[in-house]
């Protein structure tokens, strides 16, 4: 990240030197998008996306939310904004724009990606005590996060066709990432005795039937 910053014509402030001016700028940026004192709300996020030149359903805004440790979908609290931007060493829209690609680089690391993937699940839980995502949200989210993984289209199709499950829990969500990483696209190395959630057993059974 630092290297990419250095290559810019205007060098970013180096580490450890966060001046008063920077945090004022961050506050100003917050105020610019904030709906009220406490949060940047959905409309603010929408404006932010417009200014960043990305859609609200772009993975990059999700990455930003993850980096800012946002707890609520469609919202950035003042604290999240302040801490998060400070961590990214960003105090202007331009810098924010420039930092986005580096976030994508960051999740190229499988370990970080796993963190981000699990964040995506929790991020969608909007109600207190909610523990599962309905199938529709889950599929949208999977497509957003996993993009073009070969397993994804058939799995989404399966989720839509099956009737047994109405929602996906964290265990199943997490298991699917592992599934994507470990199981070959033709499912030939799927081992049922490996304690996969039943949902995936069913998926594989369904998919194998379809192959024939």
């Amino acid at each position, binding site marked *: 990240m630092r290297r990419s910053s250095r290559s810019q014509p205007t060098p970013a402030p180096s580490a450890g030197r966060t001046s008063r001016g920077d945090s004022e700028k961050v506050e100003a940026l917050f105020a610019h998008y904030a709906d009220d004192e406490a949060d940047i709300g959905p409309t603010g996020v929408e404006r932010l996306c417009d200014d960043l030149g990305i859609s609200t359903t772009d993975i990059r805004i999700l990455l930003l939310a993850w980096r800012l440790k946002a707890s609520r979908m469609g919202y950035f609290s003042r604290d999240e904004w302040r801490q998060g931007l400070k961590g990214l060493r960003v105090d202007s829209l331009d810098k924010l724009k420039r930092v986005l690609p580096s976030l994508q680089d960051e999740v190229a690391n499988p370990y970080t990606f796993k963190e981000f993937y699990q964040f995506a699940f929790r991020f969608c839980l909007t109600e207190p005590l909610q*523990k*599962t995502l309905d199938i529709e949200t889950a599929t949208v989210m999977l497509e957003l996060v996993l993009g073009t993984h070969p397993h994804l289209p058939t799995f989404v199709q399966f989720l839509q066709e099956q009737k047994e499950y109405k929602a996906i*829990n964290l*265990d*199943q969500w997490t*298991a699917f990432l*592992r599934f994507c990483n470990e199981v070959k696209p033709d499912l030939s190395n799927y081992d049922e*005795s*490996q*304690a996969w*959630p*039943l949902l995936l*057993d069913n998926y594989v059974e369904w998919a194998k039937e379809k192959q024939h």
Partner: protein
Amino acid sequence: MSASKPKKSFKIEPFKHKVEMDPDYANNTWKVLEDAIHEIYNHNASGLSFEELYRSAYNMVLHKYGNKLYEGLTTTMTNQLQKVAGQIDAAQGDTFLEELNLKWLDHNKSLQMIRDILMYMDRTYVTNQNKVPVHELGLNLWRDAIVRNGRIRDRLLKTLLDLVHKERTGEVINRGLMRNVTKMFVDLGQTVYLEDFEKPFLDATADFYKAEAQQFISTSDCTDYLRKAEKRLNEEIERVAHYLDQKTESKLTTVVEREMIGNHMKLLVEMENSGLVSMLTNDKYEDLARMYNLFRRVPTGLQTVRDLMTSHLRETGKQLVTDPERQRDPVEFVQRLLDEKDKYDRLIAQSFGNDKTFQNALNSSFEFFINLNTRSPEFISLFVDDKLKKGLKGVSEEDVEGVLDKVMMLFRYLQEKDVFEKYYKQHLAKRLLSGRTVSDDAERSLIVKLKTECGYQFTSKLEGMFTDMKTSKDTMAAFQQKMVEEGNDSDISLQVQVLTTGSWPTQPGAKATLPPEILEQCDKFKNFYLSTHTGRRLSWQTNMGTADLRATFAHSRHELNVSTYQMCILLLFNNADALSYQEIQAATEIPVADLKRNLQSLACVKGRNVLRKEPVGKDVDEDDVFHFNDKFTNKLHKIKIGTVSAQKESEPEKQETRQKVEEDRKPQIEAAIVRIMKSRRLLDHNNIISEVTKQLQSRFLPNPAVIKKRIESLIEREFLERDKNDRRLYRYLA
């Protein structure tokens, strides 16, 4: 003696006296002895003086001519035996063996005498010089000169094998002669017997029986073949007793068994129309016993029989339990299973000597196919129901026990014992409430058996039902007394059974509007009961009761025994002669399915048709109109009107029960998982599955996928979590 003193030793020289010796002494003496040996072989020993010869030999050894004596003996005997060999060889045809035997006996006799003469040499010279003793020397020389003589060896063997072959093909041979000759081989030493006779003999035997087995198998059926094999085996054992060494027996039988049985096992048991399957179907106890005894002798023989029996049992069992025809009559279905079991029990006892491994195969086969039909638990319960309702009338107590024990045996094979419990509860409830159980003792006896088999938990609700029945009896007595005391006598006599919720299979929502005169009585009871038992709630299970009605028809009066629902319907006709289906339904509010069934039994069964239906037909339709059948007649005064109902459950009812069972299992599986995880803390997937299965198998066989689902549900509810690194591990959270 003190060691310090130098010892003075004396040596005593033996007194020497010079013996004058004739230089030709040795040669002369040996000549005498050699002549004697020749004489002995020529049967002229009577003229010899034993004492003189003995002294001569003694002196030769004493004068250190032992070597000369020994060498001379060897040479002389060798020459003598070579002569004998020539004589034996010259014998023609059959006399060959006799000649050999004769010469052998001669040689033995001669050898005995020679050994006696040379006794001194045997004791001193032979032992000191480590030479072979005279007797053994004689046998060795015989062996080399005769038995292993190039001209005799093969001829002898061929003669012997020919004789055995002749005997095997039915000719009579001189067994005494055979015995002597084989005895000769044994006398010459085990190795001679083994190498020069036994081994070729066994090879010839193998060839013989290989050919014979081939021939038999293409011409005989399995039964005949086994009979022949058994006969052959006995013949060979007899042969050993007659003229072979005892040690040969096991080797010989092994060869015969291998050639006759071992190499043809599969072909034999699978023989069409006469193999194992045919014997099993036709109860051929004797043939089966023969097969068992013969096959037991060869490696994997019994396994072959057992495997085929198992697959046959499974196949026929599968046909039996999946045949749709059979499923029409559950009692017959179970009876057939019991018959089959009896048959095989008897068979294993009579033919297979109660072999444990066969019993196990039988049990595992039954377990296999009984559970192929998901209705087996229901059918077994129905079978018991039938027996306890009527089947056991007039049957002795012992026989009752016998039947119940057999039922328990089938019960043990069930994997889904909880399903059986569900049905048993339903059927027992019906029996108890309709008072149709024949023997209270038998009922209780079965409960005790179930309890011993599955534990207290399994039967606690069933026992609760019996307790309710007894308590109700007391309650009713008190109620009736109170009614009399209060002068509240009614011509309706109400019998109430108070059932504990949970113990009985109740159907929620099965309600009907009772006729007002009945309702009045019911309320009285309710008040009475609640006055003594505060805090309880009574609800009327109108679907489970019965009623006795007096009915007056044009030609006769009858007492009708009907269900509560039927009573509700019939009482409506006290005030009307004809009612439409819709009117009846509105007035009684009996659930549709029950109403139709009850109307059907009142109007459509010949001899029980106290109502008349328009239009006439077998089934009840919603547009039908019902009339009171004034012309009803029946020879009997008391008439029981049953309810037309499938004895076994209909398809939707079955689904419903199934679902209830599945629901009941969920908490049991979860409880088992939690119990296991609580004590183990960390456990991998496959172990959980197997432990849960083990814990629950006395009640049912949980499906691994269902267990998995319960685990996932527990993970979701945060009782468990997956290990972060090894996803097959679960961790208990608490």
